[in-house]
């Protein structure tokens, strides 16, 4: 109160206005998110039923039908992308955190940063050029490749930070107990960094799950059950895109249902990542 009374009224007014403005913008941002989530939920809820998540898409005029193949396709493509991106991302992060020095490390960090800014459609075209065109065949694998490239910068960054966060004293302790250098890294440092790395992986998966642009010329889409990554495959995000631009009410309804499924999946991944991170934070 005493401090307040000494302030010039103009400064107090400015301060209040600033707080109100930031508060208003925060409310606007949060409100917008809630409106989007709510709108998708309202529009999509009616479309979701057991048939929707288990059946194949049906053409116009044939009732029912679902996006079961798109859900399976999304899981397969993201899983393969993770198999590619995790080892490369974690080992690069390890190099940067533990061994990388000077120019080479800076260069790798810089390139990873640049990579994270490349539009996903450009990465999709890249995947098309090296994974589709030479074989004259669209494939789920080419989509996984594009997704892996998209996940990589995030994996590298979170891995590096996770490993850097493990105190050097722990690694030194391992060395003091007679473990060789690689043993210390493999048995002590990496396990300690794992919660954060898993968090990073979940966020990276959430990041790519909703991507549509890189899929157009890679996974291509399919109306059938397709489990072979060498063939074109249905993907949920792609199905939403196709349905949304169609003229038919039934397909619009299914597009909303698919969008709701995607948002729920990304929400679960994000909350999962948050939980993993939160527990880790508490314990250490």
């Amino acid at each position: 109160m005493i401090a307040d009374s000494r302030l010039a009224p103009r400064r107090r007014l400015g301060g209040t206005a600033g707080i109100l403005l930031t508060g208003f913008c925060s409310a606007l941002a949060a409100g917008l998110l809630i409106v989007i989530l709510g709108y998708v939920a309202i529009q999509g809820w009616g479309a979701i039923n057991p048939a929707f998540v288990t059946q194949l898409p049906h053409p116009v005029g044939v009732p029912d039908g679902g996006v079961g193949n798109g859900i399976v396709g999304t899981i397969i493509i993201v899983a393969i992308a993770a198999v590619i991106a995790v080892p490369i991302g974690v080992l690069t992060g390890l190099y940067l955190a533990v061994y990388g020095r000077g120019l080479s490390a800076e260069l790798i960090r810089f390139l990873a940063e640049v990579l994270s800014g490349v539009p996903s459609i450009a990465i999709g075209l890249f995947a098309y050029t090296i994974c589709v065109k030479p074989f004259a065949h669209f494939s789920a694998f080419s989509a996984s490749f594009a997704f892996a490239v998209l996940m990589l910068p995030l994996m590298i960054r979170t891995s590096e930070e996770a490993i850097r966060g493990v105190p050097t004293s722990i690694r030194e302790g391992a060395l003091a107990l007679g473990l060789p250098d690689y043993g210390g890294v493999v048995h002590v440092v990496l396990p300690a960094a794992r919660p954060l790395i898993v968090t990073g992986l979940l966020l990276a998966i959430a990041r790519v799950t909703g991507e549509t642009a890189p899929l157009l010329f890679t996974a291509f889409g399919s109306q059938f059950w397709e489990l072979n990554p060498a063939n074109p495959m249905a993907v949920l995000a792609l199905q939403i895109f196709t349905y949304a631009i169609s003229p038919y009410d039934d397909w619009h309804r299914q597009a909303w249902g698919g969008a709701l499924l995607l948002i729920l999946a990304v929400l679960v991944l994000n909350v999962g990542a948050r939980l993993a991170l939160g527990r880790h934070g508490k314990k250490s």
Partner: protein
Amino acid sequence: MLAMRTRINRPAAATLVAGLVVSAGLAALPALAATQLTGAGSSFVYPFFSKAFYVYSQAHADVTVNYQSIGSGGGIQQFTAKTVDFGASDVPMNSDELKRAGGAVVQVPVALGGIAVTYNLPVTVPGGLKLTREAIVDIYLGKISRWNDPALEKLNPRAGLPNLPIVSVHRSDGSGTTYIFTDFLSSVSKEWKDKVGTGKSVQWPGSNTVGGKGNEGVAGQVRQTTGGIGYVELAYAMENKLSTAQLENKAGKWVFCTASTVHAAASTKPNVSATDFSIVDRSEANAYPISGYTWAFVYENPTDKARAKLVRDVLTWVTGNDAQKIAASLNYVALPETVQDTAKKALAEVKV
């Protein structure tokens, strides 16, 4: 502490490993027994193709057709890159595109459809808004810029047209629909032909004009914009219950975009071909002035004869009566008999 962390993350790690094992297992499964053909292109024809190929697969257990709507331009490109077994576009490939295809191409008409002029006005126009061909040109040129323009009031004396600016909506992406629409505008007006021309995407001249991506984008823009006018394929206008305008055709008769008026336009050119395909602005009495065909492409000398034969069989069925009945039920117009014959003759040229 380390033990604690390990325990916490075991479920996550286990889930990941399980996911990988499952997906690896799935990946190892043999592909489905049926041969899968792929096609890509025109989004206009997608609802028809998806229904038709679904019906076809039910009768032919050994073949499935995976058609994806990536747009007419994309269809030509992927066909040329040989990543698909056939392509589809709402405009035939032109000579440049054919040169790039690196081999003789057989072009087959597979579907017929009309393009409706839709509008959004705060008043209901009894019997539908009436527009002459010249009025449409002037609206898209920006010469008629308000709904209560005398030219429009004269055509719709009892409509009570409001004093509102006209917002003309066009396709922002390269589109066969735009090609057909601008082909119509060019054939009506020399000024349009000289200033703007015909193409899958053009430089739109009006000052109060907005773009929408795809038919859905244009339909959405018109629905949202009071005073908006746009062109969409008939299926989109019907399914979205948009108001469609009555157009005065070259013969001076007022026609709506319907199956019979589009059919009348198509009947005026029984011998349609990939180089002479335009059926806009025909002088027949009942002809609707804005309509066109979708074309499918296959190579004349395919390298994989077995696949090519399957593709040929599918397309032969698609251009036949059974499939065209499906098209008619989805707001397309069945191919006229003569065009069905043209399609069959073209497909017979494929050397399998």
